[in-house]
């Protein structure tokens, strides 16, 4: 899955906060209740008019049950896609790099990495009541590399992640650098 260098090991794995996925679950649950609500709230006369628009050559109740279960199946497929997208969006902090894996849909992955010593700035944004209560927000990494910024929205405990990144960045900066002196060729 990830190609790590021989001396590299994963120190921290960051994913989006569970509430990010949970909010999508709530949306799916609400959509699942829509046909039932329509069945209950739509008056009988309106239903009769609507069913009069098409020829139903069979059991109407069975038709409703069939359509409802197909609707639930479609919503379940959508939920599985949301889960795959949520689960495969990850930041890996190793002892040498930050690797950002961004899953876009089912078949599109965007993997970028930056060395820890290239980090210039780490900023955290926790806007809103729910984000403050549940400790999740956005973390932005400014780097000196080709990819100028890394952004992770909805990450859990962003302040902890920021602290961890800064401490690893410091460790790499303080590590003695190997210097090779090459004598000039005469």
């Amino acid at each position, binding site marked *: *899955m990830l190609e790590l260098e021989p001396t590299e090991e994963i120190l921290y794995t960051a994913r989006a906060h569970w509430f990010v996925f949970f909010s999508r679950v709530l949306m799916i649950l609400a959509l699942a209740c829509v046909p039932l609500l329509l069945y209950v709230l739509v008056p*009988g006369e309106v*239903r*009769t008019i609507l*069913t*009069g*628009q*098409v*020829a*139903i*050559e*069979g*059991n*109407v*109740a*069975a*038709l*409703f*049950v*069939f359509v409802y*279960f*197909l609707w*639930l*199946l*479609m919503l*379940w*497929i959508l939920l*599985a*896609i949301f*889960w*795959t997208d949520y*689960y*495969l969006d990850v930041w890996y902090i190793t002892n040498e790099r930050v690797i950002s894996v961004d899953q876009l849909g*089912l*078949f599109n992955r965007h993997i970028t990495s930056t060395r820890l010593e290239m980090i210039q700035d780490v900023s955290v944004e926790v806007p809103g009541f729910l984000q403050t209560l549940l400790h999740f927000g956005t973390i932005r990494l400014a780097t000196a590399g080709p990819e100028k910024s890394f952004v992770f929205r909805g990450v859990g405990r962003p302040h902890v992640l920021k602290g961890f990144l800064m401490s690893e960045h410091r460790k790499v900066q303080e590590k003695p650098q190997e210097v090779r002196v090459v004598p000039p060729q005469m």
Partner: protein
Amino acid sequence: MPAFPGQHATLVANMSGIAITQTLLAVLFAVALLCAIILSAVLFFHWKRFGRKARGIVIMEGLYIVVSAVLILSAGAALLSF
């Protein structure tokens, strides 16, 4: 006028020209089943690619197959009783 629900609806005034037959529903069922199978294959692909490290994908694959099977069987039973 047909009663609703739970009673056989005989041919009613068809203003739109659309007839809902068992064949049409069977086609819808087949399309939904195909979508479910394709996604199952995609989840399996991700699982094989990421191996044991993607425990969440493994759990989702198992749960997905079980729940999809229940929904498909229920829809199939409703289709047969249409």
